[in-house]
Each structure stands twice: as C-alpha cells, then as structure tokens.
C-alpha cells in the first residue's frame, strides 16, 4: 500500500467517481462526460441551454468535488500563506474567503484559486491544478502541516438567483446574512457542511463542502427544498458559458500554469492576466515572485488581458486578434462564447502591449462551419471595461427572494 492508500492494481480502476456520480448518472441522457483531475464528470446532463438558464434564472447544482483541495495548518499558517500568495493575507479574517494567484520565482502564475480561512491557524486552499509540491517547496522553515484533502471533501457549486431561498428552506438559518466571500459552518444530517458565498458564474451563488459520506444527502436536500424552483443539475458546458459571460479566467484554458509551461513567453504574470489588484508588492513580507513582479511593474508587462465585445453572432473561438482588418497579428482569443444573458458575443484573450486599451477597437478573424463548410469573417471587437455581466444580486446581502 502506498501513502495514499492506493493498491498496486489501481490502474484497473480507470477514472474515479465522485460521491454524486450515481445521482448525475440518473439524470444523464446525453452520455457526454470528460475527465477532470482523474474523475469522470458530465459536460452536459440533459440540455446545455436549460442548464445554463438554471444558473441565471433559478438554481444550478454543479459537482466540484474534483477540485484540488489542501488543508494548511499550524502556528505559521498565516505567514506561510502570505509567503505563497500575492495578496496580503493578513487582511483575510477567519470566516472569509479570498481569491488569489500564486507565482513562481519569475513572477509567472502557477495557478489561481480560493483560500478559505477556516480558523486562526488553518486554511483550505482550492485550486484547479495540483499544488502539493508547490506547498512542500514553500513550507521550508514554516511551522505548518499541509494535507491533500482533495478526495476527503465532496463539494457542490450551487449557483443562481434562487439559491439563497432554497438553502434557507433546507434549514441553513442565517444563510441570507452571508456576504460575498463569507464562509460559515452549518449543522446538517448529523455532520457539518461548510458553505461559502463563492462561485465561478459571476452571479449569486454558494459552494457547499461536506464529507463524502453525507454528500448524497446534501444533494437530495437541495433538490427536495428546490422542487418548486426548477433546480437543475448541470454539466461543465453550461458553467463554461456562464464563466466566460462573467469574464472569469480559467487555468489551463486562458493561461498555461507556469509549472507545466515549456515554451518561453507562454506563461503569464498576474499583471498580464489583468489581476493587478491581487498583487500587493508592499505587503511587508517577501512572497514568491515578488522581485520579478517589481521589475515587471517598472518595465511594464508584455501582454494585456482583454475582454472583447465582438460584433456579429459568430463566436470568435481560437481566433487571432489583429490591429485592423487584414493587419498585424497582435494576440489571440483564449475563450469565447455567445453570452445569452448579457446578449453579447464575448471573447477573452491576450494582446501584445500596448494594444488593447479599454474602449479601443481591435479585429478578429473568425472561422466557423456551416453544414461542413468553413467560412471566415472579419469582425470588429471593442475592449470592454470590466465583466460583460455583473448583476446587483451577486453582492446584495441579504439577496432578493427571487
């Protein structure tokens, strides 16, 4: 047996199943699944459109169990987190969640994720990519311990305008007082569930964290309490539309994590990801990548992250960005979608500096297929100031009932 309790024959297992697998499988009519960190998860269960509208109109349930999760604790936990992350972690109180990035020594982003301060000396770090080695390397000299708890915590992302109303019906009293990025533990089915007002949809929503044994009960409770509210289980495709509409970045799609990037110039700094606000150079302690980031701040970044409002209705998937029609290539689109609520043809991408100032116009060359034939269209795109979609209810406390 290895330290992870894995048998020699683990290769026979294939993909892992989350505690919600059987419930999702029951709803599945599409047979479209993908791999996520060794787990099998659905792209879509029934219909992408209706799953998307559950996020924006009622309530959606998305299985985020495969996220990489690490528990960091010990007397030096705060100092350690402050060393690892670019943000000033002294500002993150107990009961709060922070979004942050962490960098390598060159100031290139390894990953982004959320940090939960669960108690004075304890944090939970959630990330898209695996971070165990990054934690180990940085732990040198700190009195902390860290554990990979990825498989020990099941998690659901519960997003949409009715989520607070439904959670109240489940019996989570005081849930409506949770502010954005608050976290709180609630009693549930003889155990506790940690609920944070966080998400990846740019909308009102919560993430629910529970031990795998009680995970199924939690799923059932949400659907029971929400039976009059059109709650829907959703797959990754619907979420992808919502996160692009909200203008949020995805590691491995919009940027290549520094630790797995081979080609020069392909990794990105926080400034190049448009995340300047996450970098506190003057927070009073040394953190990973600080020296390089100071240099970059003085010299200026190489690229600019842009959110584009593209004319026409053809999505600019994988398009090049040009300075003018037929002009010089200045960048590329990393994510694109038709945004059904913002009613915009949106694209996220990167352009070379100094292009892409807010309000400026760039061009994209879009390839799209109609009945097997490829067509091409040039489209103007305006660089937006901030997200395409940012409803009031996202931050309103207490949220409206509907």
């Amino acid at each position, binding site marked *: 047996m290895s330290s992870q309790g894995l048998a020699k024959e683990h290769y026979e297992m294939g993909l892992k199943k989350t505690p919600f697998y059987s419930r999702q499988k029951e709803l599945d009519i599409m047979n479209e699944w993908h791999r996520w960190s060794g787990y099998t998860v659905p792209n879509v269960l029934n219909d992408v459109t209706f799953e998307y509208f559950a996020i*924006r109109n*009622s309530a959606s349930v998305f299985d985020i169990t495969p996220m990489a999760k690490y528990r960091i604790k010990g007397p030096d936990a705060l100092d350690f987190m402050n060393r690892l992350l670019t943000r000033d972690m002294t500002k993150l109180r107990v009961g709060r969640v922070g979004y942050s990035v962490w960098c390598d020594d060159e100031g290139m982003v390894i990953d982004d994720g959320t940090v939960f301060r669960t108690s004075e000396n304890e944090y939970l770090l959630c990330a898209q990519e695996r971070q165990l080695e990054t934690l180990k390397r940085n732990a040198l000299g700190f009195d902390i311990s860290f554990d990979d708890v990825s498989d020990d915590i099941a998690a659901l992302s519960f997003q949409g305008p009715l989520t607070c109303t439904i959670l109240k019906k489940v019996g989570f009293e005081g849930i409506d007082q949770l502010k954005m990025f608050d976290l709180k533990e609630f009693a549930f089915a003889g155990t506790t569930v940690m609920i944070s007002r966080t998400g990846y949809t740019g909308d009102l929503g919560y993430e629910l964290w529970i031990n795998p044994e009680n995970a199924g009960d939690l799923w059932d409770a949400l659907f029971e309490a929400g039976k009059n509210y059109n709650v829907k289980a959703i797959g990754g495709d619907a979420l992808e539309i919502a996160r692009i509409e909200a203008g949020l970045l995805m590691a491995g799609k919009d940027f290549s994590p520094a630790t797995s990037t081979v080609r020069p110039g392909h990794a990105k700094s926080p400034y190049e990801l448009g995340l300047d606000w996450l970098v506190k150079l003057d927070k009073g302690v040394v953190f990973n990548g600080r020296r390089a980031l100071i240099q970059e701040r003085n010299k200026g970044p190489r690229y600019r992250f842009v959110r584009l409002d593209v004319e026409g209705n053809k999505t600019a998937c994988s398009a090049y960005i040009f300075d003018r029609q037929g002009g010089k290539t200045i960048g590329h689109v990393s994510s694109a979608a038709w945004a*059904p609520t913002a009613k915009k043809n949106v694209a996220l991408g990167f352009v070379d500096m100094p292009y892409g100032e807010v309000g400026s116009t760039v061009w994209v060359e879009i390839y799209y297929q109609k009945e097997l034939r490829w067509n091409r269209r040039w489209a103007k795109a305006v660089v937006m100031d901030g997200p395409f979609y940012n409803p009031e209810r996202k931050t309103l406390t207490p949220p409206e009932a509907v």
Partner: protein
Amino acid sequence: MPRGAKMKSYDVIVIGAGHNGLTNAAFLAKAGLDVLVVEKNPHIGGAAVSRNLHKDWMYSNCSYVCSLFRPEIYRQLNLAKHGLQVITYNGGFTLTQDGDYIGSYNDPEIMRREIYRHSPVDVDAYDRFKTDISKWCRFIRPMLLRTPPDPTSFKFRDLDELRFLARKFLDLGPRDLHDFMKFFTISVADYLDQYFTSDLIKAHKAGSGIIGTGLGPMSPGSAYVMLHHYMGDVDGSVGAWGFARGGMGAVSNALAGALQEHGGEIRTNAGVEQITVKNGTVTGVVLDSGEEISAKRVVSNLDAKRTFLGLMDPKDAGEKVVKAAKNFKIRGSSGKLNIALNGIPEFPALPKGSDLIQGDFHIIDSLERMERAYDDWKAGRWSKDPYVDALMPSLTDPTMAPEGKHFLSVFVQYCPPKVEGKDWTDDQVQAFGDTVINQLAKYSPNLKDLIEHVEIRTPREIESEVGLTEGNIFQGELTLDQLLFNRPFPGYAQYRGPVQGMYMCGSATHPGGGVMAAPGANAAREILMDLKLGNTVPEDEGDD
C-alpha cells in the same frame, strides 16, 4: 404656462408606448433627436405588459412568450443592461381525446421516438419538414430588418432592393423556388399533408398556423402564419421560444429604459385625439385633454385603421388612404384567459414527473376539429370546442407567482370581435371563459379546484385596453395581400404616411406582429434617412 413662454416643440412624437413605439423612439433618441412618446394608458407596453391584477401573481396578460424579437435590436439598445432576460423554455404537448398526448422534445432522439410511438412513417418526414422550414426561415429572416422595396418605383434604392430579393429567390434553385411560391398561398393543412400521415402530428404542428389569425387550418395563407411563428430564435436557436423574466412587460420596460437613457420622454395617460396637419405637413398632436403638442414629425404605433380612420382628418389622409384603411383586414379572432392557480394542475394523460408541462400545451387533436372551431368563428360565435395555446411561465420564471403557485396563460382560438354581429355582453364574456375552462378541465380534473382568479379577455377587452382594432394581435392579418410591400397597403409600405412628416411604426407595417420590434426599428431607419442623419438602426446579421 406664463404668457409668451414658448411651447416646447419635439423633433418627433411617437403615439403609443407599445414595444414598437418604444423601439422606434429609442433609436431616434439614440440618434440625438428630441423624442416624446405619448401613451393613452396609465402604464406603458401596449400588448407587451406584466400586470399585477391579483395578489402576488404577475400576468403577461396579452402577449406571453418571446422569440421573434430581433436579437440585433436587443443587443444594439443594450436591453440586457435595462433588465431584459429571455429564458428559453422546454417541452410542449398536445392532448388527445382518448387520453394520450404527443410531446415536443429538444433532444432529437427522444423526439423521433415520440413520433414513432404515434406514426413510424412520420419520423423521417419530421426531419424533412424541419429541414424545409429551416430553409424558409433562412430565406425570410434577412428581410425582417429591411424596408420592403416598392415594386412600382424606379428609384435606385427600390431597384437595388428588388434586385436583392430577386437574387435571394434565384439562390433557392428551381425546386425550392416552386415550393416556396406555393408556401405563401397554401393552407397549413395542405402543407402538412405533404409530410405527415398522422392527424395528431398534423394538429400538433398546425396550431402555429392559426394563432392570432382569422384563418382556419384549411384556409389558404395559413402556412405562412405557421412560418411567422417559427422564424424567431432565442440565442441563435431558430424556432425556440422563451419567457421574458418578469413577464412580457420586461420587454417594454427595458425598451423604455433604453429610450430614457438616450434622453427620450414618455407621457402616460396621454391619449391622442388627432394628428394635426398644416399645408400637407405634420405639426404635432392634440391630446384627449385638448392639450396641443407640436412636433416636426409624428409616428403612429397604432394600427392602420386607428391611425387613418381615427387620428387623422380624412381631408389630410386623402381618399385613397382612407379607403385602403377601411379595407385593411384586421379581424379579431383570439381571446385570452389569465388564471392564478394554487398549484400545478394534473394532466392524467402525461406520465408523472414529465418535464413537458414546462412548455406550451394544446387541446385539439385533429385538423378537422380545428377547422370546426374556425367554423364557429365564421358564424360569429366563439368556438364551442376551442383550440388553446396554454402555458405556465411560473414553472420556469420564479417571479411570476408565489412558490408552488402558478400563472396559467391560456390563449384561445377562436373568439369573434362581435357575437353574431352584436357587441359582447358581460354574460357572454363569462360564458366564453367558462367554455375555455371547461375545455381545459376535460383534460385536467383538478384544474377548477386550483383556480384562484381568472381574467377573461375577448377581443372587446383587448381592443378597449390595448387599442388593437378588433383585438387582432398582429395589427392586421398576415396574408400575402398584406405582407411585405403590401403592408399595410401598397404604396405605403415604407413607413411613411400620406402627409409630410407622418410615419407608421406599428405591427401593421412590415414585417408584422409577434413582438419583433422590427417595424419600430425599420421606421426609425427611414426617419433618420429622411433627416439625412447617419443610420444607427441595425440590419439583420444574417446566417450565410
């Protein structure tokens, strides 16, 4: 007003704050014009309204679903920012007299199985039907946001537009061209006969061919009415329908928001008595109150009859226009029930837990019954065995009713503008409502027990509140003699009225009704052209 103070004069006055009037005004205000919209009702929206008529229920009490609204207008006026959200809905079914149903499913495999269940041979026919309908939609959609050419004119613009049309026709190729020509004049029954053998499947599909029109499924021209209902989309999914979150009033409110963002004004409780004209040029309007407001241009969002027979002096309109307006076909044929329910009605025909209930449901399982329902209307009576297009938006949109309770919208075909030639009496309105509820209750035994409140609307109520002549939901029949360059009348299809500075922007103009907002936008484009201002009104993005 103090003596000597100069009355404000507007660049444009738009009569009627329905969705087309608001669209028209919003584009004109966006172009920098000083615009006033006057509305007779205390609320805006015309037939796109959300009314709180019973406790915590919200009724979309006229139009109730959204699909035809032009996405280019939605985007250009930034209606999302002004609170409009259109949510696609699912499902739909037709109930049969023998206790079965046929459902509509988005999933192609499930849909095929459902057709197979009723008629195996119709499965492939359904695919052929969908392909053909897609062809006609693709053909007609680019015309929606264009001004129809005048085929008698030799202006460069009209010739150019005619050439555009000719090229599109020729692109179809000889076989499709023949089919298409036929399509515009054929009945929906004859059209469906070319595809399907099952009468139930035909009835399931034919409903869109009669909704809102004074035609039966066997009347020539009803096939186009079906297409009119199919050519919309939600987020590029052609043929899909959606709910405006918060009810159809959300469409009007968002348009009003866009108008006000650009400095436009709206005055409610301001019905217009007359459009004033001097020396063949518009000078403004006189309100019911006697107040005069002057403007260089006046746009009427009212239907052609109300505009030319009601608001204009016949001397100004001229004999030709008055006669055309008199002959304009705008027959009331629909009624509506808006019902507050205390729960979800049961339909024993549907399997338990079926999602189909989230969509529209229909009663009438054969073309024959549908035609008989039409026969009643021709005789001046409401249908004894009526066709209904019913749905519960509250199953999808949580803002329409309290938790676990529902708003049931029941659109009814047919309902005459007058009963056997005489005005409706209140008792008859009630009897019409009872007929419809009894019809529904035949298929849903617990429906009556769940009813908390009912609003019954016959053409009388629709006309008196919304102002649509005879309560015709399209502001005029959608038959070939009243489409494209014939809408509302030949020679007046380019949104200009008979006097200088007078325009039309309602659904009585091209491309017609259905909460498209295209007539309002097209009229704005023409006005900006006359003013030699740059065009800010979008055209169709096309599909290529």
